[in-house]
């Protein structure tokens, strides 16, 4: 064995970013201390953590509100996106009639729609609708693509054996579309959080006392920079956890690891 094998140890993908991150944090902390940078310009990581702890009574309920909105929006996007994709696969007319408008919704920045929604709806619902709108499209388009990826041979096989519509759906269409759907779900999870945050920021004072993004805006007004960082940290961690959770879900589903490899 030469030294080359040890350079590619399995711990590497985990250890390298961890060490890089720690080094960056240490450098940040040292720069703040040696440069005597005031906290209202740039707080050090230690102070951010201290603020996270001392402001927990404000930050954690706000995190709860934002996360709940995100999950609700994700659930609605999954239900709406998957069922619309199924309808599209059943009717080409419907697909041709509606799909372009789904694209229009997708390419219109949600931050531009948010003010309008805030006029029509009360802030909580407007935030939910915004998060839903951004999460909806990846679920729809990926599931629709998955439903079109059916092996023509298997399609003939199911016809040969006289499979019912239900058997086709459960045994052919759903498993074929599943890896595509799950890839869409992983994207949608991250986007739902972004949508919720963007809408909360657009809501501004109207969303007073609610989500995490509002706490950032509020802390900004007060030049409470450490709290802005603490809220930002919570949002990032939430995003990472949502992605990790959905990736884990993908791996736990039976057969999906194998099917995904064949994509």
């Amino acid at each position, binding site marked *: 064995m030469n030294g080359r094998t040890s350079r590619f140890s399995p711990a590497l993908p985990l250890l390298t970013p961890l060490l890089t991150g720690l080094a960056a944090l240490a450098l940040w902390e040292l720069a703040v201390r040696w440069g005597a940078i005031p906290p209202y310009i740039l707080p050090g990581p230690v102070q951010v953590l201290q603020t996270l702890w001392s402001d927990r009574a404000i930050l954690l309920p706000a995190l709860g509100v934002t996360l709940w909105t995100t999950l609700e929006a994700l659930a609605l996007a999954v239900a709406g996106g998957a069922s619309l994709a199924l309808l599209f696969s059943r009717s080409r007319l419907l697909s041709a009639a509606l799909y372009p408008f789904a694209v229009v919704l997708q390419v219109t920045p949600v931050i531009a729609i948010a003010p309008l929604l805030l006029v029509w709806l009360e802030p909580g619902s407007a935030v939910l609708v915004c998060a839903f709108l951004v999460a909806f499209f990846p679920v729809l388009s990926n599931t629709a693509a998955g439903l079109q990826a059916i092996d023509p041979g298997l399609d*003939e096989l199911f016809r*040969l*054996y006289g499979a019912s519509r239900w058997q086709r759906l459960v045994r052919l269409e759903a498993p074929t579309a599943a890896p595509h759907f799950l890839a869409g779900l992983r994207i949608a999870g991250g986007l739902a959080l972004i949508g919720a945050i963007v809408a909360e920021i657009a809501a501004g004072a109207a969303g007073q006392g609610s989500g995490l993004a509002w706490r950032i805006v509020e802390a900004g007004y007060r030049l409470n920079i450490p709290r802005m960082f603490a809220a930002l940290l919570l949002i990032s961690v939430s995003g990472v956890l949502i992605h990790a959770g959905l990736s884990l879900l993908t791996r736990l589903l039976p057969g999906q690891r194998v*099917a995904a*490899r064949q994509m």
Partner: protein
Amino acid sequence: MKPDHEQNAGTGAALVRMQDVGLAWGNGVTALDGLTLDVRGGEFLAILGPSGCGKSTALRLMAGLLAPTRGQVWRDGGLAGAGRVGFVFQDPTLTPWSRALANVRLPLDLAGVARAEANDRAAAMLALVGLAGFERAWPHELSGGMRMRVSIARALATHPDLLLMDEPFAALDEFTRTRLNDDLLALRARLGFTVAFVTHSSWESVYLADRIVIMTARPGRVLDEVRVTAPPGRGAPFRASAAYASQCAAVLAMAAAASGAAA
């Protein structure tokens, strides 16, 4: 157990009768033009012809997967029930999300056979194609030849009367192909099904078939018909014999004429 069908090969009444069958695709391409062809009960029929002569289309017409635009395809009433006709495609077309046993079980599942009985029957068929012990293997873990064996086991799981095979061994290496040819003859001797086998190899057609139908290039029609003379069981001695070589040469010459006929 049914008797050895090698003896009364091709003497049975027609299982499928195609009379002056034509098939034109929507785009104006004529796949078949005036094809008249019988598949007789108990025989091993090879359909030999150049690429694109409509051999695969003819097989799909026999299976009832396509309807002719001209002429008639008559099928024996016994073939009407689900699972009475088996189909083996050029690719194994297994479902990547299920293991070997579940793949073989698919036709039984679609027919609503109880799980325990279906498992037993699928395992028995898997053993019969030489894959005992591979029940829990995923398709991607198997070699190309083994995947094709799973595909054959799936087609035979319902004990069909007619097995339709669409160039099943074309993608395999010569050694694997030779072994699968022998094993297919052994399976047929044991289970007694009728075969219609599409191939573009004259050597394969002579080795396997009782009767060879030679088709012209598109639009496909039957140009000639050959009856193969072979000792029962065939095997390596037949493959090495002068009788095999001379019949191959004759069929090859006819096939060459056929591909020139409409080229």
